[in-house]
């Protein structure tokens, strides 16, 4: 697996016990973005995720023990960084993200110059495509993040995320390890990096169950709030480039 040239894209798929969905996810990426390598990062699954992913045509980065989502995604970022990919788009291994949206995220990354593009289930005409509890959580974190980020974010919990080389360089050194999506936005903000959202289709997971149960939702909220707060305390206070300052 090598970058095909300047501006090369790698699609990473963090997966834990996703043998029921991973083949379809990999094949879908190959169908809609042909020629783009797919790297499945297996977080020490107990099932046959690795074998299924390889048979579907993906490269596999197999972690020696379970690290959790953040550690898993960061391992993919580190390998992509080492292999000199310029863009990395993360697609979840449960099949919730539609590979047809990958070209739009890549296009926005290339044209906007921002460091991260989020595939949003709310942005634009799609409206909400999530359950009641998740919608409530998203609304809560939108309110929390609005003053910190200095701009609204419609879907801060989305894992459908593309990053460019600058964000990749940052995330290989500093990346939240447990529930990374929301905290990663604050990590970006610490460096005064920019993000944008593009509307994307979200589907129910193809197989398996979400690891975030009702009880864990409370832990999730407390953990993420703490992570956001800690990252705000670490804020480096760097000045924005002059062009960005003018925009404000």
């Amino acid at each position, binding site marked *: 697996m090598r970058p095909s040239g300047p501006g090369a894209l790698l699609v990473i798929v963090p997966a834990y016990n996703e043998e029921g969905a991973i083949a379809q996810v990999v094949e879908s990426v190959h169908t809609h973005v042909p020629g783009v390598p797919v790297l499945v990062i297996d977080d020490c699954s107990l099932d046959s995720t690795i074998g299924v992913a390889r048979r579907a045509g993906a490269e596999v980065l197999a972690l020696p*023990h379970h690290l959790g989502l953040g550690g898993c995604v960061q391992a993919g970022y580190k390998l992509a960084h080492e292999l000199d990919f310029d863009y990395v788009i993360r697609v979840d291994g449960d099949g919730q993200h539609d590979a047809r949206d990958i070209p739009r995220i890549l296009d926005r990354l290339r044209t906007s110059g921002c460091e991260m593009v989020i595939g949003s289930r709310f942005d634009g005409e799609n409206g909400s495509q999530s359950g009641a509890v998740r919608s409530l959580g998203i609304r809560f974190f939108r309110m929390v993040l609005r003053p910190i980020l200095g701009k609204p974010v419609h879907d801060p919990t989305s894992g459908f995320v593309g990053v460019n080389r600058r964000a990749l360089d940052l995330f290989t050194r500093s990346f939240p390890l447990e529930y990374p999506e929301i905290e990663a936005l604050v990590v970006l903000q610490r460096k005064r990096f920019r993000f944008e959202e593009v509307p994307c289709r979200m589907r129910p997971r193809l197989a398996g169950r979400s690891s975030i149960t009702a009880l864990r939702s409370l832990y999730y909220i407390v953990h993420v709030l703490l992570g956001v707060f800690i990252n705000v305390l670490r804020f480096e206070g760097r000045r924005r480039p002059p062009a960005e300052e003018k925009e404000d």
Partner: protein
Amino acid sequence: MDHLLNVTTGLSVLLLAIVLLSVRRAHIRPEYSVTWLIAAGAMLVLSRVRPLLELLRRLSGLPDTPLTLFLMGAGVFLIMVFRFSVILSHLRDDNIALAQRVAILEYHVRSQREP
């Protein structure tokens, strides 16, 4: 009061013995046993040298000696728990970085083997 101090002495000696045995059997690494040994030693000294305990009680302005002993013990163990949380956090970070490194190296090795 004497009974309380005797119990504290007994517990401190027991803790010292357990820690030393654990170090001997390599269940605890020596660098992590030092904190436990200091804590057990401090509790032993406080429970045997009564004037020192009285001095601490006066300095802290607490109403009675047993409470002073209890708070000192609780304080020492809270500090130790915090210290071990710091150590654990560092170890976890190192462990994650190592696991990621191992996975990436294994990936490169596998890539070299395959045509």
